[in-house]
């Protein structure tokens, strides 16, 4: 099995990496951020409580995308001056991983994508600029300077050393969606689709008092 359980270097409680691709996990008891290396696990930081938010998604939520099942295994919460959003880390049945973003109940799926084109530095990108990659023409729709608000669950990379990050969102004429993450020196590109809530057939969602359950 790919599941690995280790003891939290901080408090000794069990910390599970359910998926082989997971690099980082958060101890549920002491909230230490635990990064897995080849030999052991080390504590690299701590997260505060993620403030209660109103996303219907939670760790453990399951869904379907193009007949492929997925489960939510991790979450990064971001905040910016006009609100906040979540990036939910997805583990698909075929072993691949992806991201489901929930920005005030607008949902988008995306996957890390490698392209040949060299992307310009963030300072040269303005709203309205167009780029051609991944077989689509993408136009910059927003630039968002955001802060990490918190992290939970399992991550495919380390997040502890990140603070402020710049995101550039792009839209296409074909309903596709892309995000450029400028939190590292080299921008990371994620390409995917904006989706309607119903399409994902989500289960194990949070419940809201006074609202019909989903």
């Amino acid at each position, binding site marked *: 099995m790919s599941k690995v359980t280790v003891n939290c270097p901080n408090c000794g409680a069990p910390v599970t990496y359910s998926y082989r691709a997971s690099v980082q996990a958060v101890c549920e008891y002491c909230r230490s951020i635990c990064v897995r290396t080849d030999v052991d696990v080390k504590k690299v930081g701590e997260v505060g409580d993620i403030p209660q938010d109103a996303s219907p998604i939670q760790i453990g939520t399951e869904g379907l995308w193009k007949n492929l099942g997925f489960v939510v295994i991790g979450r990064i919460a971001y905040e910016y001056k*006009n609100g906040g959003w979540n990036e939910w880390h997805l583990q698909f049945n075929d072993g691949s991983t992806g991201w489901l973003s929930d920005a005030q109940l607008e949902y988008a799926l995306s996957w890390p994508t490698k392209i040949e084109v060299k992307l310009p530095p963030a300072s040269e990108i303005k709203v309205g600029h167009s780029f051609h990659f991944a077989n689509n023409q993408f136009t910059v729709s927003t630039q968002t300077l955001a802060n990490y608000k918190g992290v939970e669950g399992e991550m495919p990379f380390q997040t502890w050393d990140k603070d402020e990050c710049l995101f550039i969102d792009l839209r296409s004429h074909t309903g596709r969606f892309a995000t450029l993450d400028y939190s590292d020196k080299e921008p990371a590109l994620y390409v995917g689709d904006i989706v309607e809530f119903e399409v994902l057939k989500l289960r194990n969602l949070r419940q*809201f*008092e006074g609202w019909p359950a989903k």
Partner: protein
Amino acid sequence: MAGEMSTPPNPAAGGKPPRPRPATVPKATALNCPKCGSAIVLRTFSNAVNVVCESCHAILDASDPKLKILEEARKRLDITPLIPLGTRGLWKGHTYEVVGFQSRAINSDGVNYYWFEYLLYNPYAGYRYLTEYNGHWNDVTVCHTLPTPGNAGIKPQMRLGDRSFTHFQTAKAFTTFILGEFPWQVRLNDKVEARDYIAPPFILSSESTPEETTWSMGEYVASSEIRDAFKLKADLPSPMGVYSDQPNPFGDDSGHFWRRGWTFVIVALFLVIGTWVMAKRETVYSENYHYKQGEQAEASFVTPEFDLGGHTSNVIVETNTDVSNDWVYIHYSLVNTDTDVAYDFGREISYYSGSDSDGSWTEGDWKDKAIVASVPPGKYYLRVEPEKDPGSQPVNYHITVHRDMPTTWFFFIAAGLLLLPPLFISMRSAAFEGQRWSESDYAGASGDSSGGDDSDDSSDD
């Protein structure tokens, strides 16, 4: 990474969620307005960025536990939403709650035109809007796909999916009144450039600030649908005028009516050509007569018998006279010798001529043609009874009886009748479109067909 996996997890096939979490059930948060102390309920949980006090209309920071005041109400303007905040309804497959309300306006030639926006919320499906202007409602969602500019032309086009939208109006829109909560920053007098493109019943709108442009798609909905969905007790106001994306009740059908009308006209044309070709055009009787009033005791007489052959068809009685500045009236009776069925008709033939200061003139005609339709075959004779003023000039006349002559008049009447409905519908449709476009940036121009010269002429009027 997939290749490295020895055993892929299969959550969809009953695999356990990786980690149990204590179930948390968010509740609507109850707070108090720091300005006036009234109760404030956050209906959209932490999705709310700003909330506007329903009592004093102060704009508050919903992300701040103390609800910091961002902007106080400028004046005690009060608008009561037609659908009260907190109302829920089953709409487009989800239960939605009205959580926010805005009044916005554009200014055109010094006049403000106001419309109202209702923000709907479902904790899973997210947000959508209802907009209302003069009783016209639209269901609006944010577009996920960027539209593509189409033909520039007089009215620029935008394409989205398989629809083409025509530019209707560009205006500066500003916010005039706010209630409830919003997942973005709201302020009175927020300004955007709003562009509307229409493909009734759809409207594609963009709102631009210097930072970003967002697109949304509206669909025209009947107010009764909204009243039923949200179980409103009172009827919503009746729509006034024609709204930009209101479907034309005559528009979609007029093409269909024209096609059907022309099809029947072509059928009628074939019929008339057929009768023209098939007509026998026989002359069955021809004779000269003379009449002087008072010459004989009995003016009437009968002609010898003649045969009307073939099938039931028309008979044409032609009368040529030499009347000049005079008249003659002839009473005809076409009588079947076997059945005594008679076709009676009278003809007045008068012809006058002269000259005056305007030159020479004539009135009437010295010849006449009478058509008797649908006469069955058989032996017939004509009973003829001429009549004139006592003492008038005698008249010489010639009677010719034709059998089965082609006629075309019925075709023109039929064509006219057949094309009347599409013509009527097209006129109604055009009137509706005229009303629609009179509210647009293109008011005054007479639509797509108008050339530059036409619009110059109309502006001179």
